[in-house]
């Protein structure tokens, strides 16, 4: 923080603080805040299209929320989203912790770390929709993966990856894993490098093994970063859209088992059911809001 700049001069310049904030504030208010309020406003109205006739907008109070919560759909899609997030996140955090520990371990002296880091971060930058399209073609019934697995003698006949609930979910989770473990590794590694090396040296002098050092020193000190990673990943998981949308062509097949919350929202937006879309958005807003408050609290207490 800038310590008390000389007060007299500062006074006359400080109006520039406001001036420089204008672009941000104007754009934020117009493109984020107003839409947020109109979204909330819409959630209290019955407003959709039935065939060619426009129904509403009629004020219905909390009816949209009631409908949303009493129909089983929301729960199913929430469950799908969470299952696929967990299936991707668990391997992601394990692999990232391992790789982060190895990269930051001075004893191990790994070579080519820059190459490895570059490669594992690469999938994060790939267009998610193109990546999903690629997996769709690779894992289609007569696609290259089936051809490879048959040639290797692992399969006798083509496996219908995209007609089976768990294989489809696994593919989506795997894509999410591939796209995000590099990012997590780099974050965790930065955290691990920030730990005072004197702690490690002291532990070594006392005869601790590398396993003990990892569990007794590294992990506890990484806790804030781990929580940050987990909650940001959870918020990202709730937003899961591109990959399942493209992979299943928006259907969430097989049997809506890969339909996520945002895909559901997208459906309402495209069918112009504004009331339901509004209610769903507000629920998502509340959940992500609570989650980001937790992060906010954490980074705040780290600061002080």
């Amino acid at each position: 923080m800038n310590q008390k700049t000389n007060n007299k001069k500062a006074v006359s310049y400080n109006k520039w603080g406001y001036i420089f904030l204008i672009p941000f504030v104007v754009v934020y208010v117009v493109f984020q805040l107003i839409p947020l309020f109109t979204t909330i406003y819409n959630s209290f109205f019955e407003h959709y299209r039935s065939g060619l006739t426009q129904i509403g907008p009629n004020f219905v109070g909390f009816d949209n929320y009631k409908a949303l919560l009493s129909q089983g759909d929301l729960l199913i899609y929430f469950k799908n989203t969470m299952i696929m997030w967990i299936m991707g996140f668990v391997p992601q955090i394990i692999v990232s912790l391992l790789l982060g520990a190895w990269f930051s371990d001075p004893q191990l002296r790994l070579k080519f770390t820059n190459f490895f880091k570059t490669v594992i971060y690469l999938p994060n930058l790939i267009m998610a929709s193109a990546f999903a399209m690629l997996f769709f073609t690779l894992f289609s019934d007569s696609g290259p993966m089936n051809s490879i697995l048959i040639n290797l003698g692992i399969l006798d006949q083509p496996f219908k990856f995209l007609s089976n609930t768990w294989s489809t979910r696994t593919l989506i989770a795997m894509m999410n894993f591939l796209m995000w473990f590099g990012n997590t590794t780099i974050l965790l590694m930065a955290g691990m490098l920030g730990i005072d090396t004197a702690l490690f040296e002291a532990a070594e002098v006392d005869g601790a093994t590398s396993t003990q050092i990892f569990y007794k020193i590294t992990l506890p000190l990484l806790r804030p970063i781990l929580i940050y990673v987990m909650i940001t990943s959870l918020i990202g998981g709730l937003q899961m859209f591109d990959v399942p949308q493209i992979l299943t062509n928006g259907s969430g097949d097989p049997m809506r088992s890969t339909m996520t919350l945002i895909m559901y929202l997208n459906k309402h937006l495209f069918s112009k059911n504004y009331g339901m879309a509004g209610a769903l958005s507000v629920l998502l807003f509340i959940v992500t809001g609570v989650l980001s408050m937790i992060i906010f609290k954490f980074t705040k207490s780290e600061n002080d």
Partner: protein
Amino acid sequence: MKKKKAKGLGIGPRRVIAYAVLVLMVFLCLFWFYVLFVNSTRSNGELTRGFSPVPSDNFVTNWKNLMAGTLPVWNGLINSAIVACLSAILSTYFSTMTAYAIHAYNFRLKKAMFTFILMVMMIPTQVTALGFVQLVTKLKLEDSFVPLIVPSIAAPVTFYYLKQYMQSNLPLSLVEAARIDGSGELHTFNMIVLPLMKPAIAVQMIFTFVSSWNNYFIPALILHADKKKTLPILIAQLRSADFLKFDMGQVYIMIVFSILPVIVVYLFLSRSIVGGVAAGGVKG
């Protein structure tokens, strides 16, 4: 879990395990793209016969077929490039400005403003999409790039990163010195602050460019005319077309076409990108 097995192991075996896992991860990351590039060189006939790891010679033919096809790929590329480039420039310029306002000046709402931006940082754009689309419709900005570019001016995450960087890399004494020399505030910002922030701005430019390039959700809600569509929307269109009728070689080429620019950029700038990710962690 592997760590447990390594208990008490010497450096040598641990190193072997580390390399083995790393090589496996590299394989998992690159394998799909290898298959993609090989398959993009093969004709539809060759592709239906099953996978072969050796590239063939149909890359150019596939390319020509794609260009002659019905998908407006060049338009898509140009549209994506316009949106992503302008977003990256506007977002970083104004985020630096916002960060500078909070960093360099003392005013009454400073703390409140900073707290507000941090609080809204994690709120996903999807939850305001409904109101956003309605607003865009009301302003008659459908099929325009404005609603995809202008909102990037208010980018809390970019702001936060630049603010952190400023804290350790922009001495206010320089700003003071410029004032004494009679430089106006905006002039100081453009001529002194921006150049000093170059490394951080470059990193954020790349991130904004990539996320805008890859963005699918919002553009799909706003762009309807074929000529205006960006690459992710064309990919979705390709997916929803009955793909068996398609020439699979073209499908692969299309995927290559949409991810190649980012890969090329990454190959040149990977070091600063990876460094930028590390610096963007939760240090502050």
